């Protein structure tokens, strides 16, 4: 998993869902939290990681990049 969202820290501000250049996130209307749906399209630009106001997102290299 490249992108992980810490749901305890996430306040549901939609920032990551709004800005992701590759539109990797979708919005879960029930939990009011973002969901990492198209994770294989993530190019690790770090925008969500940078802009998250609660530092609730972590980006890590997947095994395939080792």
């Amino acid at each position, binding site marked *: 998993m490249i992108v992980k969202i810490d749901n305890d820290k996430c306040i549901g501000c939609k920032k990551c869902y709004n800005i992701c*250049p590759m*539109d990797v996130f979708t919005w879960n209307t029930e939990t009011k939290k973002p969901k990492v749906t198209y994770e*294989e399209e*993530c190019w690790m630009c770090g925008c969500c990681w940078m802009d998250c106001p609660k530092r609730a997102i972590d980006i890590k290299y*997947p095994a*395939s*990049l080792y």
Partner: protein
Amino acid sequence: MSLEEFTKNIIETDLLVIGGGTAGCPLAAKAAEQGLSVLMVEKSNTERSGNIAHGIDGYGVFPHGISIQELIPMWSERMTKRNQGAGRNVDENIDYMIFKNEWWAVEELERMGIPMKWDDGDYYWTPHMIHGKGLKLGLRVHWHDVKPKMARMCAERGVKTLNRVMIIDILTHNGAVSGATAFNTRTGEFILIKARAIAMATGMYCRLFDPETPLIWKYKMRYHYNPATCSGDGWAAAYRAGAGLAHMDDASWALRIRDDITNSYGNFVNNDGILAKQYYWNGKPASPYHANTYVGNREAEGLGLTPIYQSLENLPDDFQKRLEVNFLDERMVSLKLAADRGFNPRSHRYEMMSYKPLQMMMVQGISVDEHFQSRHLKGLFAVGDCAAGVGGAYGACTSGLIVGAEIDKYISGAAEPVLNEEKINESYERAYAPTKVKDGTEPMEMESAVRFICERYIGSFKSEGKLLEGIRRFNSLKREFLPELMAPNPHYQMRALEVKNIMELAELHLHGCLNRKETRGNYVRLDYPEVDNSRIDRLTINRIENGVPIAEKFLVPALKPEYVEALKQL
């Protein structure tokens, strides 16, 4: 569907800006200031989109400490002789227009709320790649959060922005643009736009060769100059509408870094005569020139001298600190990713993937004159990386602002736009056919197949046999799998259309390489090792004329006499 049904969802505007990145935002903001109604459509979100979504450290080359007269030939020689033949700078008149207006563009950006100076209130200059001794031509900017500022700049000026909207086709009437078709990549809604002029700012075409990972398609790694969103949508749409694309028979390359921290090729500070990068072969320092040379890498691989490393370890401490600021401005997450793996960027030797250079489409684009108007399609303007001969943030912002300031002149004389029903249906079919396919081929699988064919059969070292085999495979892939391309939701509908655009341009590249029988600069045909003299000062333009695709050799224009005269007056 009939035109009436389509036109329920029609938007009318004076100017349509396609792509809200480094060039599109300044263009839209400036045009809105002229009192035009401006609609900007962006496949992502203008707050974080395009090549500088996550920031950039260098604005680019500037006539700083040197006259424009001296800079133009210096810049063009670097591109034409060392690199690409008649290369990225396809027209010195474009260079003239950009260099002449760069200071004006900087003032305009500052006025519109884009900071160019550093915290101490001064500009920060660094040597650029083309620097001569002691020349600092590069303007170093603190631009990690410039995109949100650019989005605000547009909103404040009344630019109407549609985020998550992807363009399908440009519509034309009587040889001039009249609008465009588009769809929302989240809702799937079809959108019809009527416009008097179109400015294309969709960046370059990046997804032609293998991505930078051991796996073919999953987990693309971000690479410099190669934002993953740029799939050549603007080029393909412009080509289909009759605009010419320059240089589709060429490709640029750079070395990949195995464990990403930054790029190996680019606007890296190289201050005060200190090498910003040191390359190592077999544990021994090698000259950067040699390590960065294509053939050199191949030799090194054959001689057992690889891996080649890139290292910053011998640089002084203050220099290292400055590099860290570069990383933070360019792509903040890179330092975090390095830390996760236990790499200290100051001492870690990053492996270069010398056997497999990163290929990209950097010199190509929509063929434009020095007013950034398409040479073939009236009413179409192209700016930034989307246009051939314009590059970097400096080229994108400056060309965008020039067009934004001048385009009202074109628009006031443009005819009332008329939409063509047949073309709209054709366009709708292009984007919506994959939504009706069940159990077909996923867009990413298709894309990986195309990219593998291009990497393997066009590759770095070309030959007729390989190219013919590539074309054969490409054709059978297209015949058997393109009709089966599947898009179960609007997100994949976007990816499916991207793949179609990628394939359209890949085909031009394959055939262009087959017909280009020479070796020059980075373009290597093993079966034709000599320079083709008939191509000197010429570039290939691909376009569709009366429904027939043609490729013509175009004479690169010399600097116009009036500009030569104007330079003398400066």
